[in-house]
């Protein structure tokens, strides 16, 4: 396993998987930056709740971008084994379980880096808001940021497990990419129906489910206000169990596959 990871890294030369995640980060960064710079000085509603504003924003952005990015990344990591039927050769040299795990670990590393950078982006953007609106600094809600990091990692990893399994079985890679795009659209929609049970049905919807901030719209003043909601620990445990199940099924399918 520790032997395979460096080999895997050499194999994915010129696949530019990191670029996908970087692109998503940049798009999110500039999108938020643009939104912030458009805030009028009288946008007082955001003051004192800069973090909440961004946490909700990024949950939305993750739900839009990550399903696609993860699908594309998993596909680019896996299709190299199928295009030139390299898997056939690989399976005569390495344990199948190691092959499966190496790809998962690699995906996890990308996702960790992504989640870390995104979480680090939050305080940075908060500074920008405060500078832009000349607002006093706000205390950093470390627990909320930690939960944001944790949930982004977890939901993404579960998505990655599913996408990797699909990708390892599809020669054309159209199916996994289709699943990614479809998941992204559904994940987006599920956000707009916060109280519908629908968002619990798809793993993509859980970027929302684990968001610790909710929004309240005040029609009279046309302002919005944010309020914290408790992290759904039981749901998180259930989701993790689902992730483990997805892993076990994916692994079993790959192990039994005839090549």
């Amino acid at each position: 396993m520790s032997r395979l990871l460096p080999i895997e890294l050499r194999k994915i030369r010129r696949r530019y998987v990191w670029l996908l995640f970087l692109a998503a980060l940049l798009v999110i960064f500039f999108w938020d930056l643009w939104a912030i710079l458009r805030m009028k000085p009288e946008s007082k509603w955001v003051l004192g709740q800069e973090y909440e504003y961004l946490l909700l924003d990024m949950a939305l952005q993750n739900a839009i971008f990550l399903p696609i990015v993860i699908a594309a990344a998993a596909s680019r990591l896996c299709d190299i084994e199928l295009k030139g039927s390299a898997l056939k050769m690989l399976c005569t040299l390495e344990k199948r379980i190691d092959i499966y795990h190496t790809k998962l670990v690699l995906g996890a590393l990308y996702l960790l880096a992504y989640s870390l950078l995104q979480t680090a982006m939050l305080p940075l953007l908060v500074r920008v808001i405060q500078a832009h609106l000349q607002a006093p600094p706000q205390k950093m809600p470390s627990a909320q940021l930690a939960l944001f990091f944790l949930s982004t990692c977890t939901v993404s990893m579960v998505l990655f497990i599913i996408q990797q399994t699909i990708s390892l079985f599809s020669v054309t890679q159209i199916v996994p990419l289709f699943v990614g795009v479809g998941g992204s659209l559904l994940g987006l929609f599920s956000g707009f129906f916060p109280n519908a049970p629908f968002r619990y049905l798809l793993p993509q919807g859980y970027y929302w489910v684990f968001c610790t901030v909710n929004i309240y719209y005040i029609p009279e003043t046309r302002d919005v206000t944010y309020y914290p909601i408790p992290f759904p620990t039981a749901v998180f445990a259930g989701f993790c169990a689902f992730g483990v199940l997805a892993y076990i099924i994916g692994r079993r399918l790959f192990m039994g596959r005839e090549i």
Partner: protein
Amino acid sequence: MERNYVIQTRNLTKEYAVKKKAAETEAGAGTSRVVNRVDLAVPEGAVYGFLGPNGAGKSTTMKMLLGLIKPTDGDITILGTPLTSSGRSTMHERDRLDILRQTGSLIESPSYYAHLTGRENLQILCRLKNVPESEIDEVLALVRMERQQNKKAGKYSLGMKQRLGLAGALLGSPKLLLLDEPTNGLDPAGIQEMRDLIRTLPQNRHMTVMVSSHLLSEIDQMVDYVGVINKGQLIYQDSLLRLHEHSRKELCLRTDNNNRAVCVLQENGVPVQIEQDILSFPETKDERTVFLISALVREGVGVLRLWERQKSLEDIFLDLTGKQVSL
């Protein structure tokens, strides 16, 4: 002394589940036997030709040897180590791979990473096989791919991919080489080169080679042993020498009265066959041929043509096994 076998199988069987409709035409209900109780014996240091028409089960057999697909039943012993017994793996996957690492393979289509250059592909393989990268130049020279080594493998022609695949299989000087139709996609010069290379491997590199093909003529000049598989059954397995003993020539005859000619020849104890107006019988000594022809002429049969013909492979297998096979 008993020869050592590098590959030995007993009862090797693979069944695939098939849809109901298709199953009705097959013998077993619900399954089709793609490889049927095959007992392979590949002697050490030999080049073993594995012959069979399309769909005979060659690739399936070789994949089972490599553990890429699970046999339904049977035993597999490779390099003296039993890997599978009654269709079940006898050892931990890690130990099985230790054996398989001493095996180079090229199954069905060559394996390569399309986005990497030929050289980078071999570098990956070196690391996987724990072989020093200094071997790369040597195998590249063997398959004559030095000049294309820095081109992306995905942009190679089929023949070049095949060569790259062979180079990869040769890395680490494995004791056993499994090549499934390695000449696929090669030009005539390439086929000749491949043959020459394969033929020298046992001597120069102490390898045993199993090479599949659907044409005997293609591997005739490089193999010592032949196994013939047809519809999943191994119908012949022996040295090429023995096969050639059976491939005697025969004499063909055209006459103006075949019925009469058959009678005359049979009266003289000749096992004659008639097929599309042509009589054929095993080659005989010249004096006897003269005697037979004059006998025919004496009986009023007009001999139109007489010529010599190499017995076809199909006929040889028919003789040997009583089974019809089209190669």
